[in-house]
């Protein structure tokens, strides 16, 4: 399906991953324009309802990315987020929604290209 | 709690007195020690120089046989066998793929359910040992642990690797007076006994020198290899040192047997190169 253009929304934390995306920009790395970024103070702030709303509004793939454990600017936001992701992912899978459509990651600078390739490959 | 017994080659060969004294003590304590059925050589130091898989396969086959027999733990009196079996069990439990491969190799399913015990662990676990003592072994003794009984620390997890105390405590239980000396875990020359006897003479010599200097009346060991070098190589030691050492070297099971009043013959004392007798003069116990 060459013309199928997956719409991918990236929910990212403002510290590691947003800065990572900026760095990906300054080093002129290319990735698919289908990925758009929404900024949050921390992955702890990303509510599962938003992922749901993104799917309901037509997103094909979702990336949720934040700082590595122990690197969180607020010390524990990513830990809390991880625990919710584990349960939310289990529920989505239970409901028959393909969890490969939601990619969780701890991403630094090189993340952007790897993320899009993952989602694009899926698409 | 079913305890199996893995004799290994030395207990049937050069260390028959260790086996005799062990079985005599066990009988006296009312503890039966069924041998692991169809046991094979543990590979000792030779196997892992030849082939790492062989070094794991031999002990794995032994432990698998013990498990099939329903043994919860296996007493391994010889320190070298004890070290090989412990290391094998540790590595196979840590790596599931390796466990499956080695089990396949020996066509026996090794599960790792049987624990590996050395002689001190087994004796220490027997309640009321003091009560069994009829003739306290009132001698000043130097407890010699050797190298393999307490190492590698991370795997064996038995006593403190650098400064062990467990044998000293056991000897105190049977009335002995363990001395504080510096060669508890220094090497006796081990396998060089045949190829580099001169080295053994030097290293074992140093051990005996320190023991005698501290006034020890006997050296207590728990490993056939240590006994071999300290006892059988005594002429080489004396020739190199240019002086005589009369200090006897006995197994912990023999010391325990003597303390329990078992006859010397049953303990195999007559098999030693260095006569096992204590000059009346310097035995402190005699004066009480």
């Amino acid at each position, binding site marked *: 399906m060459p013309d199928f253009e997956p719409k991918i929304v990236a929910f990212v934390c403002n510290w590691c991953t947003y800065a990572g995306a900026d760095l990906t920009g300054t080093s002129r790395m290319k990735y698919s324009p289908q990925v758009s970024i929404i900024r949050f103070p921390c992955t*702890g702030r990303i509510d599962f309802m938003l992922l749901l709303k*993104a799917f309901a509004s037509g997103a094909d793939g979702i990336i949720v990315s934040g700082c590595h454990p122990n690197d969180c600017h607020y010390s524990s936001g990513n830990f809390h987020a991880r625990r919710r992701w584990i349960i939310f992912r289990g529920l989505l899978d239970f409901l028959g929604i393909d969890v490969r459509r939601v990619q969780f990651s701890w991403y630094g600078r090189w993340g952007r290209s790897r993320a899009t390739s993952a989602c694009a490959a899926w698409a | 709690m079913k305890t199996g017994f893995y004799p290994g080659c030395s207990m049937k060969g050069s260390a028959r007195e260790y086996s005799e004294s062990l079985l005599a003590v066990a009988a006296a304590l009312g503890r039966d020690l069924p041998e692991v059925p169809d046991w094979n050589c543990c590979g000792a130091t030779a196997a892992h120089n030849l082939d790492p898989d062989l070094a794991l396969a031999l002990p794995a086959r032994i432990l698998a046989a013990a498990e099939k027999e329903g043994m919860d733990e296996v007493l391994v009196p010889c320190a070298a066998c004890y070290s090989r079996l412990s290391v094998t069990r540790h590595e196979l439990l840590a790596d599931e793929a390796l466990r499956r491969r080695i089990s396949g190799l020996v066509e026996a399913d090794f599960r790792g359910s049987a624990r590996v015990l050395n002689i001190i662990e087994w004796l220490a676990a027997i309640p009321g040992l003091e009560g069994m003592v009829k003739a306290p072994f009132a001698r000043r003794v130097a407890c010699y642990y050797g190298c393999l009984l307490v190492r590698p620390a991370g795997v064996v997890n038995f006593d403190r690797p650098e400064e062990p105390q467990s044998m000293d405590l056991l000897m105190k239980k049977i009335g002995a007076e363990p001395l504080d000396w510096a060669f508890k875990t220094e090497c006796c020359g081990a396998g060089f006994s045949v190829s580099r006897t001169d080295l053994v003479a030097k290293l074992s010599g140093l051990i005996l020198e320190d023991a005698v200097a501290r006034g020890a009346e006997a050296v207590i060991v728990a490993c056939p290899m240590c006994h071999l070098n300290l006892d059988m190589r005594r002429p080489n030691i004396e020739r190199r040192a240019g002086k005589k050492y009369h200090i006897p070297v006995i197994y912990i099971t023999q010391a325990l047997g003597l303390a329990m009043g078992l006859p010397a013959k049953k303990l195999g004392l007559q098999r030693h190169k260095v006569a096992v007798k204590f000059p009346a003069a310097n035995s402190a116990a005699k004066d009480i």
Partner: protein
Amino acid sequence: MARIGVFICHCGENISATVDVGKVAEAAARIPGVAHSVDYKYMCSDPGQQMVQNAIREKNLTGVVVAACSPRMHEPTFRRACAAAGLNPFLCEMANIREHCSWVHEKGDATTEKAIDIVRTLVAKVKKNKALQPIKVPVTKVAMVIGGGIAGIQASLDIANAGHRVILVEREPSIGGHMSQLSETFPTLDCSQCILTPRMVEVAQHANITLHTYSELESLEGFIGNFKARIRKKARSLDEKLCTGCGLCAQKCPTRRIASEFDAGLGLRPAIYVPFPQAVPNKPVIDREHCTYYLKGKCRLCEKVCPTQAIRFDQEDEIVEVDVGAVVLATGFDIKHSDFFPEYGYGKHKDVIDGLQFERLASASGPTLGEMRRPSDGKVPETVVFVACAGSRDPAKGIEYCSKICCMYTAKHAMLYKHKVHHGKPYVFYMDIRAGGKMYEEFVRRAMEEDGVQYVRGRVSRIFERNGKLVVKGADTLLGARPMEIEADMVVLATAGVAQAGAEELAQKLHVSYDAHKFYAEAHPKLRPVETNTAGIFLAGACQAPKDIPESVAQASGAAAKVAALFSQAELVREPLIAVVDRQAPPLYSSCVGCFLCQSACPYQAIEKEEIRGRDGQLLKTVAKVNPGLCQGCGTCVAFCRTKSIDIQGFSHEQVHAEVLALLNRGDRDA
């Protein structure tokens, strides 16, 4: 009706090279609520900012979206510009169409389409932005320094000299810390008393510093700028005002054979004692565990001899409550004492001692008055072996880090030994020499070449006593790992530097995080070494990790600078991007149901309980309330709250919801 201004930047041609900025401006103009949409070559330039300000004034815009570079770059710039034009700065958002769009995609419709998407997303967000005012939190301009070692002393002096009051809390009867126990210090061999005592006196006499010795922190509540500390002043059994420090009581006290902590157990002290001659304050304290009066109710000799009747046997601990605005943790470190090395005979042979004990032997105020005599029989040791890395860099012993200062003080010890025993033969067993400071390498080189210290590169395997001598078995790896034995008269172990006893409990009282070895965790190892993750609490010295005196002093001054910066403003001004719990009209009062599970989600303990009472005072509801001083705006509670009662300003539910819908072409509804 929203009146949004959209400003598309070419960024020279960084953006316009791949994004059709004209088309984006056109598309933006068509978004409902956009009243002004232009593009310009350099938005962040002065003319560019001028354009924004003029548009705000002419079209009285209610929101601004600048589509240009990353908000991490110019958000402050444009927010200041909007503020200058009278628009609340938090009604201005940046749409990142450079790093996240023009730079990372090829030229083409898709890229321009994405730029429009991003602009539409941020326009939707800005419509839901609220005008926010920075949070102003009052600051109590008093600092509390915990720990009276060199780091605590330096921090206190710097803060006090910056004109602020300081409360220095020290657990021991005197300030000075481990430095006061040292004989000389590397690399200059200054006598530690000579360079430390003046500072201690300066602290005691400084008008701005209140000194609480023999005291510990009982509890700390509150938040940056508004801490409430309760300090427990342990009873010295002495009235400090009356006591002149004459020392008669100590001389007369019959119970004399107590191991002196100051002399690291080598010397003895009476039950009523002054730790060391230069102690500040120079007032004794009664050791209630050993004083005969407290054990058997008899004696009271010190009371009789005291010329000023200053002894108070019935004195009780006293709790002092103080308000402080900042806390500097300078509790220092300790060296490993326990039977950590049975194979070295530490604790079994009296002549196997640790570094601090050697310092006391070498110190003029030490038990041997500076003469090099060994603890067992007082003889002068002819051969001394110094063992470096005794515990450090040894994962098997559970301490894998390098304690940093042992190489230096071991070289110093060897040098001091040679200066006192010219014919003595010092050996040092080492793995690697770590002498990275200024004049450090030269110092160690001098010990080797001028003072003839025999450095042996190898580990010591065992130390045992043989006819009066300490046999040190080791190996010299530089000579083919040849095993060697040295018959020594004394052995000094440079044991590992570990966290101070009680460090963990203190950290829990202050909600400061610490690592596996109980050293306090800095906010960022490279960029914020003197701050912690808890706002208002700073670090100085070895409590953060083992370090030498120069580094501790530098960190202390760094922490003091941070405190001074904090106290420089009348009020603490912080970005208002923090969480707020919703309040509504009666009868609901708030959608929060008071389950308080958000409290366990908050890493800063910023969520408190608030009781809502009716006019008649009857309790209606207990709901959550966010403390603006503590909340750092991570939003973990916001995503957790089931009823969406807690929201974070700047990333509120409405804002992010609008962003998601706008990004996925659902667009926002209100015209």
